[in-house]
């Protein structure tokens, strides 16, 4: 039932304002997974309540799993059961008991036991599946932990290739690389040949046991030669292992990679993107990239990590390629390539970035509506790209709508983003309706800054204050603009560039008193522009006697302070 779950399942609880950001979404899907795990725990611990079978036909995945051991006497059947239930310690104990009782254990069964121990590294796997996470596998145990496997191996009367294989693969998995090679030599000494799994494990372990790049590559070539001698056919995994190992070989790896790819093509092995991504990241060859994408729609094969293709198309700024890659996602099961939500966010982030840079704003907006918020929650960099695109195409009138989205996505606490948006709005004067909408938006931002119940309050900067004030002035909301001046004082910022704008607006309303106030404010900030202002006010306004006196007082006080 797990595999058939809706792949596009997203957070669905509506009317709950915090569902727009990407991190909560991951949190919610993890929370749901852990709820399911909790339920599974109950179901498997108390199976007697879930035995009644309503379903006709029977649905086996909805029955409780039997995780408890049934067979308890010392016998081979008990050992088989323990291996099946993945109870490593119990299996080892049962094996020891069997040997002590003198019952011979068959070779196949011993091999199964060895596989089990190697896979789980000598301790029981955790109960229940961990929710889908990008955590590492359990930390590689120390080299002594493979004692059980080695002990049983040494006790075996006869060993075949499979036993050696289990041991080698276990050692490689848990980090005992040199031991793995020793065991391989042992295998050869016993006149047995390796199989493809052994060679894959050894190839992936090769970079760890040699220091220099050249030596590493030599070892890998040596292994491949031996593989050919022993008539073992390489598979996809072999080539992937080689390519992965090449990544660890630095520059030498890059030169060797192409022949490997060609050989893969020659052998007609269905190429996996895993293999190719290594190359693309290292080589950035346009040719190989193009030929690859041409093949895929025909093959429709399952690949991995398609976003690396986009990485490299980005660096070429090739929007056509990007569209082709995006359409590839619609073919067959390629959507699975995007990986988990982290990789998806990287992919869509880069895609959107490319769009904003290269395409016309209408196209950008079309994609914006399509991608956001159903597929991708842009981070603040994404929103800045969008603002940039709006600026390039002169569609600044859309900024208030974008601001609404920014708020919903929770990016309103990112000072750079907000300031950039404000400065874009404040840069030039717009037609009146747009100016009014800008003014509303600016007031909204101001309210955000002055909110006291935020955990991390936004701090005013000179830039944001001046932007808001100039927007308000341009929209002729003089009252609110004057209030902003008070905020300047509170935030200890200086309104340098705004004085002239203020003077213009005051002249428009022909309010002499306000003009005098303006000069006073300017003087209180000790702005260099004060004498200039004073002159202009004295010339351009009809001042009363009192006002003239105030001005001359100010003049003398500023002259003294100079």
């Amino acid at each position, binding site marked *: *039932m797990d595999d058939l779950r809706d792949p596009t399942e997203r*957070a*669905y*609880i*509506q*009317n*709950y304002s*915090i*569902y727009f950001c990407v991190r*909560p979404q991951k*949190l*919610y*899907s993890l*929370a*749901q*997974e*852990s*709820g*399911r795990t*909790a*339920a*599974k725990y*109950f*179901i498997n611990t108390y199976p007697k*309540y*879930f035995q009644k*079978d*309503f*379903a*006709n*036909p029977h*649905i086996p995945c*909805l*029955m*409780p799993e039997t995780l408890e051991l049934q067979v308890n006497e010392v016998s081979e059947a008990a050992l088989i059961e323990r291996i099946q239930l993945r109870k490593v310690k119990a299996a080892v104990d049962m094996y020891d008991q069997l040997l002590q009782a003198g019952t011979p254990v068959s070779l196949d069964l011993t091999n199964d036991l060895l596989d089990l121990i190697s896979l789980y590294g000598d301790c029981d796997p955790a109960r229940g599946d961990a929710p889908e996470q990008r955590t590492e596998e359990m930390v590689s145990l120390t080299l002594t932990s493979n004692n059980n496997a080695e002990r049983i191996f040494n006790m075996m009367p006869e060993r075949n290739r499979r036993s050696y294989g289990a041991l080698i693969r276990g050692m490689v998995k848990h980090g005992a690389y040199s031991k793995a090679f020793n065991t391989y030599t042992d295998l050869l000494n016993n006149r047995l040949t390796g199989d493809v799994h052994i060679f894959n494990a050894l190839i992936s372990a090769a970079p760890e046991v040699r220091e220099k790049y050249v030596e590493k590559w030599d070892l890998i070539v040596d292994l491949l030669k031996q593989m050919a001698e022993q008539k073992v056919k390489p598979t996809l995994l072999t080539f992937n292992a080689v390519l992965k190992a090449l990544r660890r070989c630095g520059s030498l790896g890059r030169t060797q990679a192409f022949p490997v790819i060609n050989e893969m093509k020659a052998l007609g092995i269905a190429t996996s993107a895993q293999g190719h991504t290594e190359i693309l990241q290292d080589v950035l060859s346009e040719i190989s990239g193009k030929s690859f994408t041409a093949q895929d729609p025909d093959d429709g094969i399952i690949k991995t990590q398609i976003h690396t293709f986009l990485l490299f198309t980005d660096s070429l700024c090739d929007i056509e390629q990007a569209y082709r890659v995006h359409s590839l996602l619609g073919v067959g099961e390629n959507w699975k390539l995007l990986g988990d939500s982290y990789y998806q966010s990287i992919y869509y982030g880069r895609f959107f970035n490319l769009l904003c840079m290269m395409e016309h704003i209408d196209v950008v907006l079309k994609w914006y509506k399509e991608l956001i918020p159903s597929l991708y929650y842009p981070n603040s960099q994404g929103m800045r790209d969008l603002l940039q695109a709006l600026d390039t195409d002169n569609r600044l009138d859309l900024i208030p709508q974008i601001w609404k989205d920014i708020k919903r996505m929770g990016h309103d606490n990112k000072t750079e983003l907000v300031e950039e948006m404000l400065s874009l709005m404040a840069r030039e004067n717009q037609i009146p309706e747009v100016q009014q909408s800008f003014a509303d938006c600016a007031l909204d931002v101001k309210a955000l800054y002055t909110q006291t119940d935020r955990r991390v309050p936004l701090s005013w900067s000179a830039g944001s204050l001046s932007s808001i004030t100039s927007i308000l002035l341009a929209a002729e909301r003089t009252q609110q603009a004057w209030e902003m001046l008070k905020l300047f004082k509170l935030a200890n910022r200086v309104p340098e560039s705004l004085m002239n704008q203020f003077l213009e607006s005051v002249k428009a309303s022909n309010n002499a008193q306000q003009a005098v106030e303006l000069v006073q404010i300017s003087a209180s900030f000790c702005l260099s522009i004060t004498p200039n202002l004073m002159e202009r006010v004295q010339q351009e306004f009809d001042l009363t006697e009192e006002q003239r006196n105030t001005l001359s007082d100010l003049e003398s006080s500023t002259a003294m302070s100079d």
Partner: protein
Amino acid sequence: HSVCYNRNSIYHFIDRAEKPHTVCRQLNSTLWLNVGGRSIHSSAVCCKNRAARIRVGKGDRPVTYEQALHPHQIAHRKGWLSQHTSNLQGEDGAADRTVEDLFIRRLIYGTFHGCLADELVIKRRGNLLVICALMLQKLPPHKYYFLVGYTEELLSHFYKCPVKMEIQMLEEKSVYKYL
């Protein structure tokens, strides 16, 4: 035969809405007179002119739309809380569906204790059981997701059919009038 057993063969709206807690009370007071024998069990009586009706009181008690309208208003001004096809002619399993519904209501009432804004609506579409709930914003959203995942999985395994929960959040209970 390969016909899948559906507990809800045709998608149709027919049922009587039962007021759950009164019926629960009835089931609660069931007595086994002879253990292991066959006997009559009876429960407390709830007359039809008192069931699912909230009587007019002082005027300080808020009631939702669903509570305020009485059962004779079903199919006039009210819908059904439980939707399945067992009450159609020739269909069986009505009693089983009812008991399942009650179990589900009690389970959800306890799991999401204090968070339910109104009665559950349980819909059956083919094999699928859909539980539609209105919830208040009492818990942080990740806890809701946890509980939803838990309930869905538990009920699926219990009833051997896919169970989905659809939740809508409200800020507070919607009051229709005060009685």
